[in-house]
């Protein structure tokens, strides 16, 4: 038996396979497909203080080995979350993490304090990297001073596991990784989507109502992997790898490059069972390669 357990912040994950926020609904959408509790953890759809309608249709475009989305954080707000979603996700026997988003630092802080009171939520993922909202979002994640300020403020308001989700749309990912660590984040997760665009040449209009949107899927994997590798070398807190992970081979690349856990995103759209198949594949790989503990694989390529 291989030991798959990893620790991130105050949380123990029974295995390193998590789901990426905004691609896994609130978990229950997957109940028909597999037992969600098998995963190391699930990250819920981005939540805001007030309900949001998101951006107008069309919000999606297919791209080579990827997709663009400009959902824009459509969600029913934290009140609805507490009343209707929290009781349901509390039943899962796995770590549930809430992805929080705000226009202002105060909103992030209020959300963090509200989530702090929810016993069955293992942690917060602080999303400072959503490219699809006009205010907040990526503006925080691409400006060092704002990233610092919001992390510090949320840290003060939240005492369980705090993960800061970084934007890849920056010159130096290492700077932002360090800022998160310095301000007390327990972990960083990366990458969120890359800002992209598509044009419909039949209509000669942008494919998305918002013109630009977030690129995800295997297309971004090489960039994500590079950033995870850079970030993992720069900080001591655990790094969670995200970006184009479609199968266990991809997940293993991230772990070998320094990720302590991975999040499966767009892959779940194409194969709703992707996350659990990745979990099985990692276990098989470790066994075949003779690793007894997933920890021995983390950052393997950096060893000599």
């Amino acid at each position, binding site marked *: 038996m291989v030991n798959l357990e990893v620790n991130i912040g105050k949380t123990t994950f029974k295995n390193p396979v998590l789901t990426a926020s*905004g691609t896994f609904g609130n978990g229950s959408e997957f109940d*028909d497909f597999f037992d969600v509790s098998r995963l190391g953890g699930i990250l819920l759809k981005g939540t805001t203080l007030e309900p949001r309608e*998101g951006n107008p*249709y069309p*919000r*999606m475009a297919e791209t*080579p080995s990827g997709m663009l989305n400009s*959902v824009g954080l459509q969600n029913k707000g934290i009140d609805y979350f507490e009343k209707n979603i929290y009781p349901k996700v509390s039943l899962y026997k796995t770590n549930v993490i809430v992805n929080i988003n705000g226009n202002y630092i105060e909103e992030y802080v209020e959300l963090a304090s509200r989530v702090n009171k929810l016993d069955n939520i293992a942690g917060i993922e602080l999303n400072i990297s959503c490219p699809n909202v006009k205010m907040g979002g990526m503006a925080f994640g691409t400006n060092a001073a704002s990233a610092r300020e919001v992390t510090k403020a949320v840290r003060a308001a939240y005492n369980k596991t705090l993960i800061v989700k970084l934007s890849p749309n920056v010159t130096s990912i290492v700077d932002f990784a360090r800022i998160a660590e310095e301000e007390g984040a327990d972990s960083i997760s990366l990458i969120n989507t890359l800002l992209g665009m598509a044009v419909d040449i039949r209509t000669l209009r942008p494919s998305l109502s918002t013109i630009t949107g977030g690129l995800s899927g295997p297309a971004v994997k090489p960039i994500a992997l590079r950033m995870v590798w850079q970030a993992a070398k720069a900080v001591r807190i655990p790094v969670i790898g995200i970006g184009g992970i479609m199968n266990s081979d991809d997940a293993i690349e991230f772990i070998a490059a320094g990720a302590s856990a991975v999040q499966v995103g767009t892959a779940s759209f194409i194969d*709703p069972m992707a996350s659990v198949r990745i979990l099985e594949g990692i276990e098989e790989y470790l066994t075949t390669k003779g690793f007894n503990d997933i920890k021995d694989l983390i950052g393997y390529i950096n060893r000599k």
Partner: protein
Amino acid sequence: MTKSVRNFQLIDNKSIKKDFYVLELSSGQPLPEILPGQFVQVRVDDSKETFLRRPFSVHDVDYTRNSLKLLIQIAGKGTSSLSEKKPGDLLSLVGPLGNSFSLPENDDRTLLVGGGCGVAPLLYLAKYLKSHKREFDILMGFRNRDRIIEHEEYRALSNVYLTTEDGSEGEIGFVTQHSLLRKEKYSRIYCCGPDAMMKAVGKFANENQIHCEVSLENLMGCGFGVCLCCIVKTVDGNVCSCTEGPVFNIKRLIW
């Protein structure tokens, strides 16, 4: 109606008209209950350019053979690739997905309206209604005689009325101009077809206070309610077409 990811084997691929194919797929295991209006998400494996699955309405179901049919119109890369599939090929399907057309009351006067590829879900709906002993008429609109698909299959189930834009078969004009709509007093309309047709039918239904359900074809990322890409503007705000639809009562839609 438990959703699953499953491999189906292609047992038949019939080209029924230029650009239209009926694929029959069978599963090794029994099918779950599938309701009319539901759809499946099909993976297109052998095309470099398709990344996401493609949604198709369930065109027909045969529980005894564990098989279902899809009616596919070539629209681009994915549908072309699917049209070239051969018996024996495996296709991965996620489904059944979405809601369904409602069952009419016993005393409803029901009309099914379809156009172009929008006839796809209506065959299974018609069979379903028939098996539930509901009566209904069928009205189909096409551009011209050469574009008409499958009306024989429908004739076996009920009265079929046709329009073509050029009058080459049936009445001339759009479905909403068919004389039937002036003669008969329908209390319920189910419609699937091009946007313009659904809007025209919806308008007609509204004006005549007829209960009307349409099946929408929004772009879909996942098909089961997690990506929030397939939204439709409704009186209740943006809702997912893949879970709260694809069938909508037109009263709910903000068109």
